[in-house]
């Protein structure tokens, strides 16, 4: 049995990781603004890449982990997996929010529009909404056992849904292509950009670990207090 002390130290550790990661991220952003080269066609707007792409990737990774932890919970019935899923979903939503604000901010200057109904964007939007639903449902259930099982069911179903949405949206678009279709697949970045990009990705990952550790510790403590 974990004691209150261990929860406190878990939270403390999470906060430390977060603090260090945020400092690192600040450094990366400074590096991106000051040192990374300005892209020829897009101009300074391209610098959003370092904020946007890692956030998007972390968000999707977080949701993927929710699905896996959910499946694990239903088999093992270990409440820690549920607490982790909860933490990862929330952090995923936070990164998702960054993605959904920086994406349009970037799209406006380069695509001339805030939004494109394009497969990947649609898929991410649906996923973020589904996880908003996931979180909302969690807040609407009092019993911790019910909450854990119900959210695990939704987490797993979301995981299974992803390929279907992807496929259907793709079918939809490739048959009747949009006049302007822009696929934000990674261009082969020059090394200077790639270096900053990888640093940014690493810093973001550290932020994810810090957030999730903190949130997980808080969740464990709340569960211990409730019982």
């Amino acid at each position, binding site marked *: 049995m974990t004691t209150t002390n261990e929860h406190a130290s878990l939270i403390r550790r999470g906060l430390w990781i977060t603090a260090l990661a945020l400092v690192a991220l600040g450094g990366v952003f400074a590096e991106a603004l000051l040192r990374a080269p300005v892209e020829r066609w897009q101009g300074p707007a391209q610098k959003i890449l370092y904020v946007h792409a890692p956030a998007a990737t972390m968000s999707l990774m977080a949701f993927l982990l929710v699905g896996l932890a959910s499946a694990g919970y239903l088999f093992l019935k270990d409440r820690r997996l549920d607490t982790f899923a909860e933490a990862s979903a929330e952090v995923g939503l936070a990164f998702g929010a960054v993605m959904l604000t920086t994406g*349009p901010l970037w799209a406006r200057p380069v695509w001339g*529009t*805030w*939004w494109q*109904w394009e497969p990947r964007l*649609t898929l991410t*939007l*649906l996923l973020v*909404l589904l996880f*908003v*639903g996931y*979180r*909302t*449902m969690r*807040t*609407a259930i009092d019993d911790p056992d019910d909450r854990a099982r119900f959210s695990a069911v939704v987490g797993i179903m979301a995981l299974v849904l992803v390929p279907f949405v992807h496929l259907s*949206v793709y079918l*939809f*678009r490739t048959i*009747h292509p*949009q006049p302007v279709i822009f696929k934000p697949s990674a261009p082969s970045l020059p090394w200077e950009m790639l270096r900053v990009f990888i640093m940014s990705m690493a810093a973001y990952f550290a932020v994810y670990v810090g957030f999730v550790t903190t949130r997980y510790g808080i969740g464990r403590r709340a569960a211990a207090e409730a019982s």
Partner: protein
Amino acid sequence: MTTLRGALVIAAKDLRVELASRAALTSAVTFAIMVLVIFNFARDPGEVSLAVLAPSVLWVTSAFAGVVTLNRSFAMEQEHGAMEGLLLAPVGRSAIYFGKYLANLAFVLTVNAVLLPLFVLFFNVALTGSLAWVAGLLVLAAAGYVAIGTVLAAMTVRTRFAELMLPVLLLAFLVPPVLVGVQATTRLLGGRPAGEILGWIRFLAIYDIVFITLGWLLFPATMDE
């Protein structure tokens, strides 16, 4: 106690029940976005362009979100007979009506306040002054159909299958404001001057006055057993 005070007490309680979980508002907003997405995809992109569809989607989504939230309002009174407590309280039936009306309107307007920016985002609408007019139209329309919805929800919640009955009855009343809203929004987003839609605004204002008054007159009849 005055009708106004009674109404405010009841509306405050409704909002408190909402806040007790906060789930209702998030759900309503997510629901609205989902509807936006579904509509967008339920069209053949080669045939129907996004801009042409935008006003319809905005209005249908707004109306749906309204309908979905109205049931809740009286279901909460019905669950453990709380309505008996309201009926026996020393406030008039009109205090109950206006209390419920205010809480429902606040709720629907909050959902719309979140919906409009998202609509601008997803449908790539230009940020011009006409958006303020669109917002005004949404408020004006909501003021009317929430009044009707409040009366209808009070009746239908007593029938079984309330979730089904309410939209059935309400949708007929939604047709005029939605129709007018779509037409006016199409003009506004098409860059026409606001003066062109004054006739429609007058229409909505009359609709509001008529149905708020009618609701106030008819509501007592829905309460008596």
